[in-house]
């Protein structure tokens, strides 16, 4: 990406209208015009507006990728609240053997505790109430809570050595999504929309799908700023696709009217706006006309992509019966596949309810059931369509959970507090080694002993797979060059093919 391009994008925000004027005059404006959309200057009636990127979709700011990309898009299955790695992936029989004994001080080693357990007198170790079996070619340990995930273990790469700096939800989720614990920076999807643009001119490049888990239905909240564009142009903000009446906010025509009525209004608007453009010469008016057309296309394309009723039965069998209920995690996974088919760049799911401080065994059973079958189905479905090759799928939350019980440990139940020092995620898709387990924690499941992966390393790796060097992909704002990975991050080469 040239300096010029960055400065152009900056100018676009500082003074978009007059800059468009320049773009229209063809002075260094080709790149910008394509950034905004190829239909921007479709009128061309007076011969002034000739810039046209030609190809479908909207180009990003990057002139060319830093290196060949392995994938074109990302599906990020965010497990909000902090899933317990100890019940799902990180098998620690020692914790069952030493159940009820105190966590040795040498293992805790000064780890910061949250205010929820810092007052506890004791930190009794507790192992998983659920069994683990070996699966796949490499005999990978997977919990009995994840029977479907277990079956596709040869397709995914499990990272057991994730760690983060944040220990509370708000900063930790914000850290994963934006690279910074405090709000205000662009989220990953916005960065990608900015850098790579969209390959579908009828759908936003960055879409967001929410679902509420059954494990702890009133668990942690989400914040719409998690899919905010921060200081990037608002064209790059995440657009939530909802199970509600309005699948995208303000998408539905007013009650009682039809698409024909809307079309007539747009034609009328275009006619009058165009006249006004001829009088004032402000190219922003042309841009507005094209934004109305994009909105109109979205009114068809969004309901089309969200209408899953024509999916065959075998697909519903794969994803599970929940997939028929809009707004569930399973339905969102199916929707994610449909969006991937339409070349949406970044598909962000959030599944709430993993914050299981107490009654963890009961809650995690339900929560795992919410996600297990559909997550596995998504991988299988992408694979059978040949889409897994150029899609990166990520599964994981904002931190892990402690190896000791929060609150009362009884024969049947226990809770776990937040744990930033180690947790598990998995990735699958283009360029990711299959059937791999990466990183290792100690036998207490408390500390990483091999191949630690920081949040910024994960983000750097994600960008790398998309052909982006995270150190070169910057945006200058208030005098400083910002990047998703802040000032750190190393690509985890070991897990790449």
């Amino acid at each position, binding site marked *: 990406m040239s300096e010029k391009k960055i*400065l152009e994008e900056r100018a676009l925000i*500082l*003074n*978009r*209208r*007059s*800059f468009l*004027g*320049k773009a*229209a*005059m063809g002075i260094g404006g080709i790149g910008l015009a394509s950034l905004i959309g190829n239909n921007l200057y479709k009128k061309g009636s007076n011969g002034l507006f000739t810039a046209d990127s030609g190809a479908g979709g909207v180009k990003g700011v990057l002139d060319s990728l830093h290196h060949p990309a392995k994938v074109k898009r990302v599906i990020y299955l965010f497990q909000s609240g902090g899933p317990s790695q100890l019940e799902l992936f990180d098998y620690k029989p020692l914790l069952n053997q030493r159940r009820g004994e105190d966590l040795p001080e040498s293992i805790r080693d000064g780890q910061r505790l*949250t205010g*929820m357990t810092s007052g506890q007198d004791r930190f009794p170790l507790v192992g998983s109430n659920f069994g683990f079996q070996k699966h796949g070619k490499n005999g990978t340990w997977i919990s009995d809570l994840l029977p479907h995930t277990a079956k596709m273990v040869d397709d995914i790469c499990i990272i057991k050595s994730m760690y983060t700096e944040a*220990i509370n*939800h*708000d900063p930790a989720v914000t850290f994963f999504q934006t690279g910074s614990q*405090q709000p*205000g920076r662009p989220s990953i999807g916005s960065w990608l929309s900015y850098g790579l643009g969209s390959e579908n001119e009828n759908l936003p490049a960055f879409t967001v799908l929410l679902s*509420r888990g059954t494990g702890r239905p*009133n*668990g942690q*909240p*989400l*914040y719409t*700023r998690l899919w905010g564009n921060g200081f990037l142009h*608002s*064209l790059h903000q995440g657009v939530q696709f*909802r199970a*509600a*009446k*309005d699948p995208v*906010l*303000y*998408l539905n025509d*007013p*009650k*009682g*009217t*039809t698409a*024909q*009525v809307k079309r007539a*209004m747009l034609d*009328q*608007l275009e006619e*009058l*706006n165009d006249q*006004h453009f001829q009088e*004032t*010469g402000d*190219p922003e008016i042309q841009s*507005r006309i094209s*934004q*109305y057309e*994009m*909105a109109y296309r*979205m*009114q068809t394309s969004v309901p089309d992509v969200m209408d899953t009723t024509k999916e065959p039965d075998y697909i519903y069998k794969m994803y599970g019966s929940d997939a028929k209920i809009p707004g569930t995690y399973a339905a969102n996974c199916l929707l994610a596949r449909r969006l991937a088919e339409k070349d949406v760049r970044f598909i962000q799911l959030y599944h709430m309810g993993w914050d299981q401080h107490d009654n963890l065994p009961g809650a995690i059973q339900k929560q795992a059931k919410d996600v297990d079958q559909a997550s596995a189905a998504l991988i299988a479905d992408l694979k059978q369509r040949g889409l897994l090759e150029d899609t990166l799928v990520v599964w994981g939350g904002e931190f892990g959970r402690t190896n000791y019980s929060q609150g009362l440990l009884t024969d049947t139940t226990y809770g776990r*507090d937040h744990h930033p020092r180690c947790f598990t995620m998995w990735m699958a898709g283009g360029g990711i080694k299959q059937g791999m387990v990466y990183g290792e924690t100690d036998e207490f499941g408390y500390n990483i002993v091999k191949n630690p992966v920081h949040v910024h390393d994960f983000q750097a790796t994600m960008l790398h797979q998309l052909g982006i060097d995270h150190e070169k992909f910057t945006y200058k704002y*208030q*005098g400083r060059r910002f990047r998703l990975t802040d000032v750190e991050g190393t690509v985890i080469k070991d897990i790449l093919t």
Partner: protein
Amino acid sequence: MAAKFLNRIVKIASVIFSCIVLISCTPNTDKTIAISEGASQKQVPEKIDFTFHVKPILSDRCFKCHGPDKNAVEGNFSLHSPEEAYKVLGELKDHFAIVPGDVSKSELVKRIYSDDSNVLMPPPESNLVLEDYEKAILKKWIEQGAVYKTHWAFVPPTQPEVPETDNDWGNNEIDAFVLKILKQNNLKSNERASNEKLLRRITFDLTGLPPTMKQIKSFIENPTDHTYETIIDSLLESVDYAENMAAEWMDIARYADTHGYQDDFERTMWPWRDWVIHAFKENMPYDQFVTYQLAGDLLPNANLEQILATGFNRNHKITAEGGVIPEEYRVEYVEDRTTTLGTAFLGLTLECARCHDHKYDPISQKEHFQFYSFFNTIPEQGLLANAAELPTPYITITSKEVDDVLGFINLQKSQMKEIPVMVMKEMEKPRSSFVLDRGVYNQHTTEVFPDTPESILPFNEYPKNRLGLAKWLFEDEHPLTARVAVNRLWQRMFGNGIVATSFDFGNQGALPTHPELLDFLAIKYRTEGWDTRKILKYIAMSATYQQDTKSTKEKLEQDPENKFLARASRLRLSAEAIRDQALVFSGLLSRDVGGPSVKPYQPEGIWEETTGGGGGSTASYTLSEGDDVYRKSLYTFWKRTVPPPSMMIFDSSSRDYCSVKRQETNTPLQALVLLNDPQMVEAARVAAVGEMIANPGAESEQIRMLFYKATSRLPNEVEIQSLVGYYSQMLKKAENGEINVSEYLSIGRSAVPSELNTDALVAMALTAHTILNLDETINRG
């Protein structure tokens, strides 16, 4: 008039313009603002100027490793000061980076032109490059003596000489300064805008609302300078002006009705917002306005109003997320206040010196924490236990306080009898402040005390507290306060400030397009009593402001960003103004002032689908009662983690942090809001009802008036014919059942009068809705 004016300014201009920084503003300054120019097309100027040509390059490409941050300096060599840049280098003390006037002995030149990646500067791994043009600039600068100058914004403004002009264009000094730059660039100013456009422009800029029919008519009938001036005076005295100015201040003060993290519980800071409206209504001088907010509680015998004003520094986010370390967040709050001081009043990115010395500006990490220490002695806690806990310190406002001193608070609209409002207060035993290593909350190093950087202005003998800080800000010699404030007023009227980066006057910020004018205005503002109304009026009276927006191909080509002001800029209305205009258009707008924030239409479920288990009043959204749905957008309830989507789509600030400039974007989601938001549909229908009752049976007249109300001008023949045609087409659709009339008419709360023909109403409502969507409607030209 112009001749008289010139005589006057020649007399005024007795003070010789002596600021060496600004005097060197050459006709070629446009070439230095890299954001608009392809570097390859640039010409290297004859005379290189440090401020305008060299420093932007050094700062952006070199300072990261060779700049003010001592700990990051590579090779024991910096470029931010001549002493450092000229010093002898190497173990053998045998070479120099810069030898003024001698390119061949200057290592810097060798390095930037080198083909050897081990020698090349900036090094390839920095991902920074110098364009050929930039290399040539640096070389020529050294050739010409490598002269350094202090950054322009750190030198106090000096009274510039008002340029003489032989042109009869111009109403006041502003125009003389603008004309000088226009001439240097061979540009000609535009004609004055049409009366309708000018009135629409000034009314939106000052009040955030469109002009009334009555105002337009009286101006058209008598479009003299005097009428225009009278209109400005009445606009400035209106409560609409106060509310509009307050709306901008809400962004600056990061005002919200919730705490901002996690479950995002409600807070009651609206009495502080009512004070802001009051202050603008009273035209409180800017120095007093800011002093009250920074240090009202420390004023001698502080009254309740002065204390309430300090709520400004409590508008930051506060967490109630169980389990966080309170001190970590308390430090964030103090940092937030420090950042806000920088962005709002100094135009400096103070936050960039939290973890290390500033990379670009002369602010050390220690100086950052000296600023921080002004705000660190508040008896506050970092973590709230639950929704009900009140964050200390606060004052409680009841009807007694309102009756006594706080009469401007709209208490009648509140259900609460006692309203707690967070304010600033000093601890009895002040907390010590330290430089925090890497900015981390518990990594105390050197102890620091309230003080300010020498590079900006020494602190003098002021009390070492927030009151002293306010006094320092408003010292005559302060280089930033007045420039930053007046630049924001200019931004309000022109879309961009004279310094486009109104948040950053430092080395990485944009250079002023009209440096002399900026100083002239800054000095005028300060010496004439920080009178905000007066400056706004003065700007509005200039011929520069009153120009038409029309741009020709030539003007667009030469000055696409309109930096030289050879025309007025068309500006998209703010999020608030777009909705408020629709409410005025329909007559639905409630004119109530102040009181608790309200909840207008918002898509169903957006709070509920993200809410957690914390409960409280922000877990689900309940539409306001009665006319409160139709209040000005200034009063819309602001839940920080899920802000009102229609406002955010139109580039509102998120209120997470202090923000002094919004984006102005153009997106498909904006089209969706204008086309489908029930508020827009309802407003269009209610406006249609009004016109159908006012002009029964005269469709063409109804449409004419709707167009007039929305765009502040009458439609031309082509436009009216086109819209009448559209109306007939829609009428047919309503009559033949293509539109479900009863459903369409049921949108929104307002009743539909039974005497109207519903098919005609639907058609007229759709016509009104189309007019509301016009680009001209959502812009001011």
